[in-house]
């Protein structure tokens, strides 16, 4: 079924009885050309682009829970392409371009809103770094501009500009950045993949990866054995457990990252604002809730909920930046399981096992990467060659020293 304004209108006239499920509830077949482990944003987009760009039809996505039940439904929904380093820069640039055409491509409203993101700076040194980054972004072909304080005051009169500790010197703005409805991205890719014949199999946990003579031949699941010529491991925070089934250790440590949302308020923040002197960023959802987050909790965890010290830090940073939010009530907090790599950048690569591929290590940046990650993982699985914008996301780069350390903090698990 194709969605349209006309369809909404006619369904409204006739009692909304004509809507059908957005995707089939597929049962596993005995054999597939390609199997994707993980039915989150990246797994679903990989399956979609394998079918769409590379003509594969006999594909399954295996999800142990329900589609989009992991990090794609547990994030702060920011979409941007303001990276500095070669490797990241061209990849996120490609991703943003895919985002801009996503709704038409999928015939699905993912509520992509290019409301802009401003990253504030609070010292001369930070200003120099922001200008340098902005130039790098412009050279990549994306947009960035430096906003001075009078301009910022017009746009965001509620920021605390003149406090003595962290006075605001300006901000780096990217107008094409913004937000999207996170669940809808998973649902849109799921529906698109389903329409191209991909089997989306939920409640199907992979319990083993079958390898014969250095080549992958299939997977064992809670719904029986499935043969597969190619297997993609796209399990985000659970990548470590999936890779262990293939006898591998990944350069990944799973950490907790919390996010927070307030009660619904009238429109007051119309873009994404990031604090430059503490890890804090905020936007307002279409429902009115202020959605904000900070840094990871900084210890390995699968609890999907965080601890109070980081919550306190984030609240302090928020109050420092915009005291007006002090009386908003926080409705809920939640945590996602972040697959952190030592340099903070992801991995899209083949493994030493023939036919087994890995897409992991998305740290806290996985949401905006969903389109390009699927695009590049599909390219890799179909052709055996890395896509040109993901060529530096190598699995062995920590051993070889070809790091992509965007923060410049070093190649160590507890530093990103």
């Amino acid at each position, binding site marked *: 079924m194709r969605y349209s304004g006309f369809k909404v209108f006619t369904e409204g006239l006739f009692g909304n009885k004509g809507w059908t499920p957005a995707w089939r509830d597929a049962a596993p077949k005995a054999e597939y050309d390609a199997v994707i482990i993980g039915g989150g944003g990246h797994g679903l987009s990989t399956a979609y682009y394998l079918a769409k760009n590379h003509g594969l039809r006999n594909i399954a996505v295996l999800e142990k829970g329900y589609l989009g039940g992991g990090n794609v439904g547990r994030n702060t929904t920011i979409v941007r392409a303001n990276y500095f380093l070669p490797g990241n820069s061209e990849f996120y640039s490609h991703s943003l371009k895919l985002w801009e055409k996503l709704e038409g491509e999928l015939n699905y409203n993912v509520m992509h809103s290019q409301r802009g993101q401003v990253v504030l700076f609070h010292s001369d040194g930070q200003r120099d770094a922001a200008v340098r980054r902005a130039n790098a972004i412009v050279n990549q072909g994306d947009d960035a501009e430096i906003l001075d304080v009078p301009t910022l005051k017009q746009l965001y009169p509620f920021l605390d500009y003149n406090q003595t500790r962290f006075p605001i010197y300006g901000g780096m703005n990217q107008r094409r950045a913004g937000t999207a409805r996170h669940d809808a991205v998973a649902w849109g890719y799921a529906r698109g993949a389903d329409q191209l014949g991909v089997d989306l199999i939920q409640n199907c946990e992979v319990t083993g990866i079958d390898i014969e003579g250095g080549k992958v031949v299939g997977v064992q699941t809670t719904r029986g054995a499935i043969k597969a010529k190619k297997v993609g491991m796209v399990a985000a925070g659970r990548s470590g457990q999936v890779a262990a089934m293939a006898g591998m250790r990944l350069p990944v440590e799973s950490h907790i990252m919390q996010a927070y949302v307030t009660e619904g308020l009238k429109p007051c923040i119309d873009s994404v604002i990031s604090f430059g002197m503490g890890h804090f960023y905020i936007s307002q959802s279409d429902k009115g809730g202020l959605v904000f987050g900070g840094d990871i909790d*900084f210890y390995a965890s699968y609890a999907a909920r965080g601890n109070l010290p980081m919550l306190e830090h984030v609240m302090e940073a928020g109050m420092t930046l915009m005291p007006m939010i002090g009386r908003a009530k926080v409705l809920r907090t939640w945590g996602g399981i972040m697959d952190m790599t030592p340099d903070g950048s992801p991995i899209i690569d083949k493994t030493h096992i023939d036919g087994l591929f890995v897409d992991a290590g998305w740290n806290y940046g996985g949401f905006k990467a969903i389109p390009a990650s699927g695009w590049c993982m599909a390219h890799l699985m179909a052709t055996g060659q890395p896509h040109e914008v993901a060529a530096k996301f190598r699995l062995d780069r920590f051993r070889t020293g070809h790091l992509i350390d965007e923060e410049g903090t070093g190649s160590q698990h507890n530093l990103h």
Partner: protein
Amino acid sequence: MRLTCPLCGPRDRREFYYYGAEDYLHRPAPDAPIEAWDDHLHLRTNLAGVIKDLWYHEGGCASWLLVTRNTITHEVLSVERVADRKGASA
């Protein structure tokens, strides 16, 4: 989350610096092959369940601690000083 330091008693998580998995205790020889160093520094078992990892009591006695804890529940099962472990060199 609180950790019970063997010297200082139960203390807030804020007093501690998280270093990482116990892999850091198994340091390869300086002339070991690069794969062994990669394994030591970067590759992780990343278990969901009971693990051991290293914490530093930065805001307390400055001991390096080996913490046994559950990464799914955040339950802390035991905390021992790295220096007190059998065979540890001073």
